[in-house]
């Protein structure tokens, strides 16, 4: 069995246009969430938006907004590595929930055909741009898509199906999703407060995040990150509300422990899904309690970058890795007072802690859950 390493990454979010900038903002506890009515005319809602006035690249007119961001992020990642991405041994996996959903609105990019709202169509446009050998694999599994893409890449590298896999997660904010979550009464009117007693819902965000995964470590790096394994489960309970008992997420965590031969005492830090809806946070804390993770330091990055849907897993894995590299625990922004039945060890101030293993959790509509563990290795 081969090992799978995360060898490079690149992030675009409300916090900035590089991984470095995103991590600096995290460490300084700066949130990217601002009140805006851009996608909800007349109603100001907290949104974590990418700064469109500050693109550090030339915007290509023949590509959509999301495609421009994905292409830039993948290019910046590929520059950091030296493998042949046009080879048969390289695959691209795209994780997204809504892709070019802005094309459905009549006001948008009239020169781009509406067919590009099709995720497979968008993926083939990206394949053509980079001249990838294979059509990208597109995973659209609600808010766990990003974590699933990383899990999927690890499994395929493990079996020697590919040498290198480019995982790119991306979703943009749009009137489509803002109006949708708002009609579900799931959007908070102030910046989201994961796990807090006064949480009232999510803050929407947008992001594009790329990780390069490889069967080989980067020879020049002293520290490397191995993706050890993960599992995916379903609550089989409700399509739009999480299980009250945390059943599905508990199962995903238990399977991940089994697969990696680790347990709760090996985990130094948990990056929770933590959307700040009443139901998600309650369910997630229940699952962490049931798997003895309630004493392990945990945060949610949603207070910094909002909920970035299909990008969430990928961007939050990168943030988790960088915190592990710096041996830093980052304050869970928005948290003041416990608001769940089984209290967690929420990180309330930045702190230093030596870390070897971190656990990422994700949950989404359709009852899906994912868990995965990444290990830091020092040469």
């Amino acid at each position: 069995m081969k090992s799978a390493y995360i060898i490079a990454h690149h992030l675009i979010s409300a916090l900035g246009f590089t991984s470095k900038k995103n991590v600096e903002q995290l460490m300084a506890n700066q949130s990217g969430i601002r009140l805006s009515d851009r996608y909800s005319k007349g109603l100001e809602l907290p949104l974590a938006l990418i700064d469109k006035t500050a693109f550090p690249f030339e915007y290509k007119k023949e590509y959509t907004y999301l495609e421009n961001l994905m292409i830039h992020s993948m290019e910046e990642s590929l520059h950091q590595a030296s493998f042949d991405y046009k080879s048969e041994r390289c695959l691209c996996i795209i994780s997204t929930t809504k892709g070019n959903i802005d094309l459905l609105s009549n006001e948008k990019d009239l020169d781009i055909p509406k067919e590009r709202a099709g995720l497979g169509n968008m993926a083939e446009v990206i394949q053509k741009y980079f001249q990838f050998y294979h059509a990208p694999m597109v995973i659209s599994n609600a808010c766990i898509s990003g974590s699933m893409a990383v899990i999927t890449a690890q499994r395929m590298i493990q079996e020697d199906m590919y040498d290198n896999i480019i995982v790119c997660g991306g979703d943009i904010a749009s009137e489509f999703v803002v109006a949708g979550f708002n009609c579900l009464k799931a959007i908070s009117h102030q910046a989201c407060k994961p796990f807090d007693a006064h949480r009232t819902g999510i803050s929407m965000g947008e992001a594009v995040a790329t990780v390069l995964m490889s069967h080989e470590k980067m020879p020049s790096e002293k520290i490397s990150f191995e993706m050890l394994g993960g599992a995916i489960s379903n609550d089989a309970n409700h399509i739009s509300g999480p299980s009250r008992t945390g059943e599905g997420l508990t199962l995903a965590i238990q399977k991940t422990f089994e697969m990696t031969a680790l347990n709760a005492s090996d985990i130094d830090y948990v990056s929770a899904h933590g959307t700040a809806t009443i139901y998600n946070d309650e369910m997630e804390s229940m699952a962490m309690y049931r798997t003895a993770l309630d004493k392990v330091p945990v945060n949610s990055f949603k207070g910094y970058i909002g909920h970035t849907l299909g990008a969430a897993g990928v961007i939050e894995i990168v943030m988790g890795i960088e915190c592990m590299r710096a041996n830093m625990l980052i304050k869970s922004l928005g948290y003041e007072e416990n608001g769940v039945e089984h209290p967690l060890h929420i990180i309330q101030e930045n702190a230093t802690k030596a870390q070897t293993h971190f656990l990422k959790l994700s949950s989404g509509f359709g009852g899906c859950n994912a868990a995965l563990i990444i290990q830091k290795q020092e040469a």
Partner: protein
Amino acid sequence: MKTFIQHFVHIHAQKVLIDGVLRYEETATALDFPAFIRNVYKHFEMQYPKFYKMDDLSKLAFVGAELLNLKKSDVYKSEDKGIVLMNRSSSLYTDALHQASIADKNNYFPSPAVFVYTLPNIAIGELCIRHQISGENYFFVQEHFNPAMLTNYVSLLFRQKHIQQCICGWVELNADNYELFLYSVEQNSENAVKIVDKSPIFASLNLEVDHILNDTDNIKKLYKL
């Protein structure tokens, strides 16, 4: 590791085939999808009132999965069962309904009942609830049916012991068309369909003692049936 096709279902062009045999055909003039799928539901005497609340993509997947006759072979633990689906149009058909409800600022009526279906994996969620499936679940969106991607990944899930049984297939629905090709796979051949019919399409399959192996070539051929 060998895995076998238990059953397979096709629904397209107003026809329903189970294990390759025509079991229902709407001969009346062209029906729209909602009317057609309701007729199929009634014809096979399905009983699941939640069916009527589902969006069209979920209805298609639901009816297909009912016809796989999963109960007969339900010997697996919930967590060892999985679902891996693929289509071209994701949930775009329902997305358009949600978009239409927010297009006019003077007539703004986004609805939770529509919005929750604007993700393709909601159809998977519906099947998981119906058949108590709590293992691995994937929705892939590809521009064309990709039997190699589907088969290779499902086989990996079996080899790595993530699942012991799986519902797989292509569940496509858009404004003009619908096409379902759904099949169930398991490690044992005991519950697998037996191919005794030696007509050309079946004769060209890779069989092991009359059972259909779950491999890319077979899936390609069965899809075209």
